[in-house]
């Protein structure tokens, strides 16, 4: 018999409708972390969501926020325009790994480097989910996808890009952290990180970035449990969790 463990309360901004996500997918958890942070900080009515292209394209169906859909990869540019037009609003992008780290690499790098006072939630599941499991820029070497059927070859295609490390190196970044949501302990840490990212935006400190390591059981051809386990055994060793930049860290200590 399983026991239900209540980790948090149900935030109002989460709409009461079933998601289209596959069983075991972490998008729902990541959505919820955003919903909790915005609710706890009292930002819901003041926030504009910038969606992207990928499985999370329908995020506006699940978060009850003013929202815009952006072209593939361009969410940081769209968010820049919104923030410049409405500097008093809280603006965030929610992007997957294909969107952010491949077609949208230029936009995320320059948005971060300019120090746009926005937040990016980057959900990295090492695969293109919506289009059916093709190789992504974060696909691990050896990982099989529909466009790397023998496993990703470092020789031909390079290796998985570690975005948080790159983002942390840019001047305009206030906060960069990598989290996972595969265990309750990690969810708790992720909760704090997402909240902190929005807090930094409220304080006007600059660009804040949270990478969430996430499952894609369907395209990984795994059960939800096995996918959850892969986060621990394969992803975290290559994509270490932790804070890579925090402009307030020294003052706190």
């Amino acid at each position: 018999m399983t026991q239900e463990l209540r980790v948090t309360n149900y935030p109002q901004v989460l709409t009461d409708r079933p998601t289209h996500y596959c069983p075991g997918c972490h998008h729902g958890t990541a959505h919820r972390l955003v919903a909790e942070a915005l609710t706890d900080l009292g930002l819901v009515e003041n926030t504009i969501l910038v969606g992207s292209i990928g499985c999370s394209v329908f995020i506006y169906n699940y978060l009850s926020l003013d929202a815009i859909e952006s072209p593939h990869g361009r969410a940081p540019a769209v968010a820049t325009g919104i923030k410049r037009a409405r500097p008093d609003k809280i603006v965030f992008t929610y992007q997957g790994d294909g969107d952010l780290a491949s077609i949208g690499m230029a936009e995320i790098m320059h948005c971060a480097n300019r120090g746009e006072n926005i937040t990016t939630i980057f959900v990295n599941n090492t695969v293109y989910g919506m289009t059916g499991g093709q190789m992504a820029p974060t696909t691990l070497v050896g990982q099989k996808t529909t466009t790397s059927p023998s496993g990703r070859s470092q020789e031909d295609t390079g290796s998985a890009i570690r975005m948080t490390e790159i983002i942390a190196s840019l001047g305009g970044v206030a906060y960069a952290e990598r989290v996972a949501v595969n265990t309750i302990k990690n969810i708790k840490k992720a909760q704090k990180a997402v909240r902190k990212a929005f807090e930094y935006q409220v304080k006007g400190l600059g660009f804040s970035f949270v990478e969430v390591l996430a499952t894609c059981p369907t395209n990984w051809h795994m059960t939800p449990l096995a996918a959850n386990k892969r986060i621990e055994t394969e992803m975290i060793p290559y994509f270490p969790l932790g804070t890579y930049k925090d402009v307030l860290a020294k003052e706190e200590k």
Partner: protein
Amino acid sequence: MSQPDRIFIKGNEAIARGALAAGAKCFFGYPITPQNDIPEFMSQAIVDAGGQFVQAESEVAAANMLLGAAACGIRSLTSSSSPGISLKQEALSYMAGSEVPGVIVNVSRGGPGLGDIGPSQADYFQSVKGGGHGDYKLLVLAPGTVQEAYDLTIKAFDLAFKYRNPVMILADAIIGQMKEPVVPWTPEHRDPNEGRTWGLVGAKDRAPRLVKSLFLEDGALAGQNLKLQAKYKRMQSEVDQELFLTDDAELIVVAFGSIGRIVKSTVRKLRAQGKKVGLVRPITLFPFPADVLLGLAKQGKRFITIEHNMGQMVEDVRLAIRTVADSDFYAQLPGTLPTPDDFEEPILKALEG
């Protein structure tokens, strides 16, 4: 006989000043010749006006910044030249699809490819036929003088918000780089809260607003397209053109933008020689003054279209008059500079039939 109300500025600067007069608050750009005066001017002037200037990482990003800012209901613009406009087409399609108003300036240059940095009208097709993916239209305004560049930029913002549609200013390197006296003016009645019924500001005490162009539900995309087409039909009422000595003309020259003004000199010269020629200069390229041309065709007039490209607007002229007449065409070749003398021979030839 001093006229202190006139300022002497480049077309590029006139566009920038027109945008400020129209209340533009955000400018997003990227360097490309021959429009650099616009971002250079804006980098100071729009900030001084309490607005925002961003030199984007690319044309792609600049256009998407425009999408974001304009979705908030804030008057915003981007400017570029032909190769950069190609890169902006993605965002323009999204803006049209999700009904976001904004102004895009194309100080066009020669192509295809890198082409040259000289004047050209070879972006007519990509301006009036949509330009990016999907069935959509931009409103397209083509200034023929520096004053008109100023005036039409103000008009562009009004039209953009009236129809919630992107509007393009299609100029070229001649209009952008030349200086002429301009009488600056500021429009009087502008609703400071325009966009309040649809702009993104945060969902406070109301249902969330959604700016999107994805319509997957059964029939939804068809519905959206029908709605857009109905809007494009309403835009027909905005058609505008200059008619010069057309009443008794036997031959109508159709030319737009810089070529329109240069041909006007040719027409004036030929008139002095007793030749019955007139000019129709479309000011709106979409909507296109098809009815005006058809009306002239029905009077038995003949036509020649002159463009600084290998033949683009001539297709719309022919389409407009197809039931009663046809149009000759003369190409001012890409990479060459037009002068009134160049057009005498082709016009005379067309006049003689």
